């Protein structure tokens, strides 16, 4: 509902009390959803003064209103973390998009501006977790872009329906992307070949499992410090009946001569066609290049990020370090590194098999 105050008809006395009334009303109503418009037609200085009082007080309330904002942020974060908790196989990027879609569905938006700020706040809230943020950032950005693209000269509610509809199609496609990638990549895994992979990647695991249906091959998995998730990868592979060896991260150079190709996942694919992935990937890329082994990257398209790092230093700190270390990064170990496109042979994505140079083409098509 909306309340309209017509200041023109008030005299001074009314102004004194009126401003208080307005103030009270504002206080009451702010908690609910309402619009207060103040019509000012002939403004004398005194009246202006009162309006100013009203607005300063309004601002005061607005600043205390950030409590609600933090509440919302906590809610978003919980929902996001809960999604990831429920389904261990869910990528954080997809969880982020799911969360944003939930917000779009649950909340009402009167203006585009509000919609955009809410989305931005939600992405910020999700970035504020201890997970690796690369996929959250790219997923969130893709989603926001998608909102702008679906806006025509239509009514807000109509737009919302279109967005929701598109969002759902978008999500189903994304959920299927790992299968698409696995189908493409499995042709490259031949009978009797030896594959080297870095730590744990769900999409690499899926590709290897689908290739194992009619082929036998061996997989070398690096331990993937600091959290040693390579152990998990080896367990998963063994469960699927694929023979595998866990090796030290530092043994990459040692095994490189005996493998046929390298296959890694990625946390983000940047504009140059390079990738951001768990620390040690760059080392692996360098080794593979030196020994002339193909270096394949498997990544879903929502991981395409608008970032153009030229070296390791260019990567934003929040990509490299966990949140608690961000205050002082001089003594901590980075969690990801950047592998330049020159070291990548091909990228397998749900958009097809791409050369690194094709990545920027896709991004330009979307963001121009």
């Amino acid at each position, binding site marked *: 509902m909306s309340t309209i105050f017509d200041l023109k008809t008030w005299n001074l006395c009314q102004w004194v009390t009126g401003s208080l009334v307005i103030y009270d009303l504002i206080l009451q109503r702010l908690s609910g959803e309402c619009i207060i418009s103040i019509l000012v037609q002939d403004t004398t200085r005194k009246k202006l003064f009162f309006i100013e009082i009203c607005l300063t007080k309004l601002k005061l309330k607005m600043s205390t209103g950030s409590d609600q904002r933090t509440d919302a942020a906590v809610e978003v974060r919980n929902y996001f973390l809960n999604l990831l908790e429920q389904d261990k196989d869910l990528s954080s990027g997809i969880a982020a998009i799911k969360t944003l879609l939930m917000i779009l569905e649950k909340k009402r938006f009167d203006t585009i501006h509000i919609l955009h700020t809410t989305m931005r706040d939600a992405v910020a809230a999700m970035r504020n977790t201890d997970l690796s943020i690369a996929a959250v950032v790219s997923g969130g950005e893709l989603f926001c872009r998608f909102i702008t693209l679906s806006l025509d000269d239509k009514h807000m509610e109509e737009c919302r329906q279109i967005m929701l509809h598109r969002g759902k199609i978008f999500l189903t496609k994304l959920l299927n992307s790992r299968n698409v990638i696995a189908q493409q990549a499995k042709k490259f895994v031949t009978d009797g070949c030896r594959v080297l992979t870095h730590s744990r990647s769900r999409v690499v695991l899926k590709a290897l499992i689908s290739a194992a249906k009619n082929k036998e091959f061996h997989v070398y998995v690096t331990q993937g410090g600091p959290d040693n998730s390579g152990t998990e990868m080896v367990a998963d592979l063994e469960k699927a009946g694929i023979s595998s060896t866990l090796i030290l991260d530092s043994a990459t150079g040692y095994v490189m001569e005996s493998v046929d190709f390298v296959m890694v996942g990625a946390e983000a694919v940047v504009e140059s066609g390079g990738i951001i992935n768990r620390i040690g990937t760059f080392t692996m890329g360098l080794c593979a290049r030196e020994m002339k082994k193909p270096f394949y990257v498997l990544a879903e398209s929502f991981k395409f990020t608008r970032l153009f790092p030229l070296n390791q230093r260019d990567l934003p700190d929040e990509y490299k370090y966990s949140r608690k270390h961000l205050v002082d990064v001089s003594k901590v170990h980075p969690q990801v590194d950047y592998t330049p496109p020159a070291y990548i042979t091909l990228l397998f994505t749900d958009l097809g098999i791409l050369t690194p140079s094709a990545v920027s083409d*896709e991004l330009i098509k979307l963001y121009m």
Partner: protein
Amino acid sequence: MKGQPTKEVTQLIHEMKVGNVEGSYNITAKTLKLFKKIINGPGWTNAEELMNVVRTQGHILQSAMPQETVTASIARRILKLIREEFELLKAKVHQFSEDQASMSLHKLVTQTSNDVNVDYTEPQQGLREALLDHLQEMETELETSSENICVQAEEHIHSSEVILTLGHSRSVENFLKRAVKKRQFLTIIIAECAPDSRGHNLAASLATGNVEIIVIPDSAIFAMMSRVNKVIIGTHSVLANGGLRAACGSYTVALAAKHYSVPVIVLSPMYKLSPVHLCSYEQDAFNLVGCAEDVLEYDSLASHSAKVYSPIFDYVPPELVTLFISNIGGHAPSYVYRLLTELYNPEDYEI
């Protein structure tokens, strides 16, 4: 995909197998003619049916002669043509058109309907005529492709240059002939490409008064490379990543050129572009093994105890190629993926 080959397809496969039809150009021309006949024929009533026929026949051609990628590529191009024409005609009727051309990040985000597949079963008036028109264009493009490559010769070859080539490629022959006419004091070094030694034919055909021709054995490629200004070779087909499937010996040439930083120019008309990736060297039909008689005679003493191979193709990785010259201009290997998306529909990559 099941289906019977038409009589013409069987005939073409037979002729290719016995070697009556040779060379990518001839095969492409024949295949195009064959598909034209299919489109002209009564075997279809709507786009869907036609696409199925083209796909089936393309598949048969490809599985019969997997090393000849041009047959499948022509089928892919025709499929794309059918899609485009169908949508164009449909758009004329319904006044709207949604770009279905290729999968992209942009489309992923903006797609409104769940139904990605267009219904191609709707009959469209004038589809046949439109397709035949376009096929005519394709034929013209094919016929003029060699000439269009040749006209670029002057841009790349200058007077007093030393050019190295390998074997005998028709595109290279025409290209060099044009260069010889326009430029003076050229030296052309031809690696003979044993055991067929087709380089000798090229040497014979280029031999005129105002050009110096040197024929060398393949083993001398590296030794000669230091004095070469440009390497110009042809190719059997261009793979999706910009790599080449070219005559055996091309890899040697490309590596030697890399060592001396000599630019490698590859002449490849657009119909040689194929959306196929080299998955591994053991991949089916990537290479062929030719007759080994020329390498080691059957009745020689060693042939009892030695294995003799004479592979026909080499894979040349894209980083060794400097430039592709096609009938529509020059391209870097990293640009090949872009040309592919313009030529074919990604849905037809698997035929």
